[in-house]
């Protein structure tokens, strides 16, 4: 068990080294993408700024609580992006070109290599801008979270990232059926947009669907609720943790189903 873990860690370290080298080849591009992400982040913040020009609460969420939510959501999304996003989107390319063959032949778990082959270092840089905004919002809210709070927050973020990854990976697996799955990434960006909205704005079928079917309303709302002392019920925690496990299980099932359909490409 320990030997396997050790082996996988060593493989992952090698993948990291590869990615760093790759990024450093296109340094200016690397920096430009950071600018792009910063710009979009600023854009979301300005939307909140405009909304709160005309109201002082959405449900019970105040301005700086929502700013905290936007920051946390950005942080979660960027960490997800750093580890998983490119790999998920590359899957359709691997299938289209038949490069999947080589990965299937490697003596490691295929899902592991497919999911973690590349690391997007820019994601880590961008995640810090999310943290910076959160820190500022915390000051405005007079919050001084203790060590346990922060640890709990990070744990919940990890559950949120697992949900993002599982859903995206499941979507990517669809490319085993329709090879052109470019619209997929774009589609998922739309879902991210819900993740940064305060959950109390929603109700009815929409709320049920995006809590229990596609749990976007849990991913960043629950960690922030913990941080800003808004956890009115322990059910939030249960829902987030349970949904992350379920999503992962479903994505594993979908992945195995899809893999069976793989017939390679004429090369």
């Amino acid at each position, binding site marked *: 068990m320990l030997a396997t873990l050790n082996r996988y860690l060593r493989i992952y370290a090698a993948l990291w080294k590869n990615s760093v080298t790759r990024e450093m080849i296109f340094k200016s591009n690397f920096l*430009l993408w950071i*600018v792009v992400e910063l710009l979009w982040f600023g854009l979301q913040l300005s939307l909140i700024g405009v909304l709160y020009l005309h109201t002082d609460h959405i*449900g019970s969420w105040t301005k700086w609580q929502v700013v905290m939510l936007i920051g946390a959501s950005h942080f979660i999304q960027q960490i997800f992006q750093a580890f998983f996003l490119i790999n998920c989107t590359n899957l359709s390319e691997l299938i289209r070109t038949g490069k999947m063959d080589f990965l299937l032949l490697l003596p490691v778990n295929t899902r592991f290599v497919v999911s973690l082959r590349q690391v997007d270092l820019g994601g880590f840089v961008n995640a810090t801008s999310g943290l910076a905004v959160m820190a500022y919002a915390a000051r405005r809210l007079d919050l001084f979270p203790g060590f346990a709070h922060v640890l709990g927050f990070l744990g919940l973020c990890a559950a949120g990232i697992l949900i993002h990854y599982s859903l995206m990976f499941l979507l990517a697996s669809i490319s085993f059926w329709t090879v052109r799955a470019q619209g997929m990434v*774009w589609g998922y960006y739309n879902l991210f947009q*819900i993740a940064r*909205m305060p959950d109390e704005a929603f109700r009815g079928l929409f709320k049920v669907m995006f809590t229990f079917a596609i749990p976007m309303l849990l991913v960043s709302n629950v960690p922030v609720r913990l941080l800003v002392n808004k956890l009115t019920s322990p059910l939030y925690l249960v829902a987030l943790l349970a949904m992350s496990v379920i999503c992962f299980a479903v994505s594993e099932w979908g992945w195995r189903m899809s893999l069976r359909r793989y017939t390679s490409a004429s090369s």
Partner: protein
Amino acid sequence: MKKYFHVINIGIQNNLTYRFNFLMRTLFGLIPLVAMLYVWRTIYEGKGAGSMVGDYSLAQMISYYLLVSVVDALTAVNEDDWQIATDIKDGNISQFLLKPIDYLAYRFCLFVSGRLTYLAVAASPLALFILYFHKYFVLPADFTTLGWFLLSTALTALLQFFMSYTMAMLAFWVLEVSTFIFILFAFEYIASGHLFPLNILPRGVEQALYFTPFPYQLYFPVSIYMGKTSGMDLFRGLLIQAAWTTAAYGLARFAWRRGIKKYSAVGG
């Protein structure tokens, strides 16, 4: 002229292959829209019955977003800019330099065919969606308003296309244009009224935005439809919109001519 009809025809057939993709785009695109509507409803409820945001009632606010999605479906550039940039980068434009076909006109035909196919696919989900919100969906005041709205929407489509085309021309000079496209897109997204109607912004900010082409890429036709822009403002706005469109066209032509001089047909 006939050859360009052929291009439109081929473009439509090509696009229809990806109808599933288009359908997914439309459906996914509705999700953040619905979310935004929910947020506004909650804000209005929090403010109390009959309250206004700027000069919008809740019904008008919902209409605004519905109209934005309609105009967007009619005018948004889909993947044209990426494709143009790839054509340049991969040397595919060499063949157009040899043939009696104008590349800008060719791309414009493909843009039109893309919009037509998108509409064909998106029409039914979009119509169902609007039907669901029908009690909020206001009709334009009269036929003249509708006419000005359609004219302005056509100009919006042209402006969107020429601006994207010009951006894609950057591919002659830089290897990776997608970052630049995304940067422009970010400005378009917020300053064209995608996220919220521009006239709920503080007065000064709104005024400043009118010095950029962005409001004319989406907000302006919607504001005509909703009767927020009329009279002298309408005509002045249309003139400015036409001016931006012409300027973008000129810039597109200019960038192409300069680009061709530098072009070395990599891999062509």
